[in-house]
């Protein structure tokens, strides 16, 4: 009987310490989400300005640029998958990887060879475990991505894109990341990064929103040469920031659920422990009473 109580006590104390860890992680995630979202909004002016400029150049000058040219047939494509470094974020990484798997299957069904680029240790582990080859992996800082990393990724994919397909280059680049919609919904998302689909500025009712006819310095081609890599970096960076915010939100939610479950468990075990203790007391009493009865009889 005593052994029973001890087992329950052990379970309660281990669950309590786990609950503390969950609480701490939840709090950390909560405090970081604010920062991550602030970074998302801090990068918006840059992204907006660059998108506007790129669409202005592309729609007005009608430059035929390799980055915007649609290839007639694409035989090789690259996919960048943004997952997290650490686990304990619920289904965050697995849902991104699932989305990525779907894209890979689809691309392969279209008869394309696929190069995989990864961001985040969880994605790396997933591919390593399955012995699948990857082109390049970046890890670290998935919850706080740096612009330098985005630049590195941008440069790497651009290099692959500029290469001939025969010598290992690619015709198109896809990006799989989790979009942060709100604190409760984050959706895995696939976008095609290259060739760029430059969104033509829509003519809105307000005339002030119309793009003026720009002069270019130096030439439109060179301006586009300078703008497009930056545009790609900014797109990659935006994706990484979205992914980071989503990761933290997913982690916060997962940790909240885990903490709630832990307190449920503690409650359950405490009841069982009390039951066992009461049973022990009752038994002892019965034994004493029985002993006394037999002595006095």
């Amino acid at each position, binding site marked *: 009987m005593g052994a029973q109580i001890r087992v329950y006590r052990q379970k309660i104390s281990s669950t309590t310490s786990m609950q503390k860890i969950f609480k701490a992680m939840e709090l950390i995630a909560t405090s970081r989400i604010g920062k991550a979202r602030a*970074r998302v909004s*801090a*990068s918006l*002016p*840059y992204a907006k*300005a*660059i998108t*506007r*400029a790129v669409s*202005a*150049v592309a729609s007005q000058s009608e430059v035929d640029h390799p980055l915007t040219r649609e290839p007639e047939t694409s035989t090789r494509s690259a996919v960048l998958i943004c997952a997290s470094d650490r686990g304990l974020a619920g289904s965050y990484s697995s849902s991104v990887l699932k989305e990525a798997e779907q894209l890979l299957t689809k691309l392969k069904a279209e008869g394309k060879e696929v190069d995989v680029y990864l961001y985040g240790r969880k994605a790396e582990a997933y591919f390593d475990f399955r012995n699948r080859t990857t082109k390049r992996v970046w890890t670290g800082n998935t919850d706080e991505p740096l*612009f330098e990393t985005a630049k590195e990724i941008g440069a790497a994919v651009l290099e692959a894109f500029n290469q001939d397909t025969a010598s290992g280059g690619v015709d198109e680049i896809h990006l799989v990341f989790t979009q942060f919609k709100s604190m409760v919904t984050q959706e895995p998302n696939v976008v095609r990064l290259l060739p760029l689909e430059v969104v033509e500025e829509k003519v809105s009712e307000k005339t*002030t929103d119309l*793009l*003026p*006819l*720009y*002069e*270019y*310095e*130096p030439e439109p081609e*060179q*301006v586009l040469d*300078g*703008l497009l890599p*930056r545009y790609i*970096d*900014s797109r990659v*960076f935006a994706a990484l920031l979205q992914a980071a915010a989503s990761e933290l939100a997913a982690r916060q939610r997962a940790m909240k659920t885990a903490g709630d479950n832990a307190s449920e468990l503690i409650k359950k075990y405490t009841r069982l422990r009390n039951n066992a203790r009461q049973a022990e007391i009752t038994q002892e009493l019965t034994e004493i009473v029985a002993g006394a009865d037999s002595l006095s009889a």
Partner: protein
Amino acid sequence: MAELDVEVVAADHFVWSGAARRVNAFTADGDIGVLPGHTPVIALLAAGRVEIEPTEGARVHISADGGFFSVENNRVTIVADDAVIVDAAS
């Protein structure tokens, strides 16, 4: 007099914004000075210093390392890969 509405942004943070009388910057071709009423322009920015003369206060110097800038309807947007204010008007 018309004034320029200036906004300076870097890749991951906002740098400076406000009304200004004049903006000087280095482009790939050379120096460019923007006064109110300038024709719309998109130019590549060379690494170097951007000088803004606000309507109030001292000049603001920003060191930028490449990027681009656009001018339209007296709106100047300077988009730099990285930019820091060297000495801000207090």
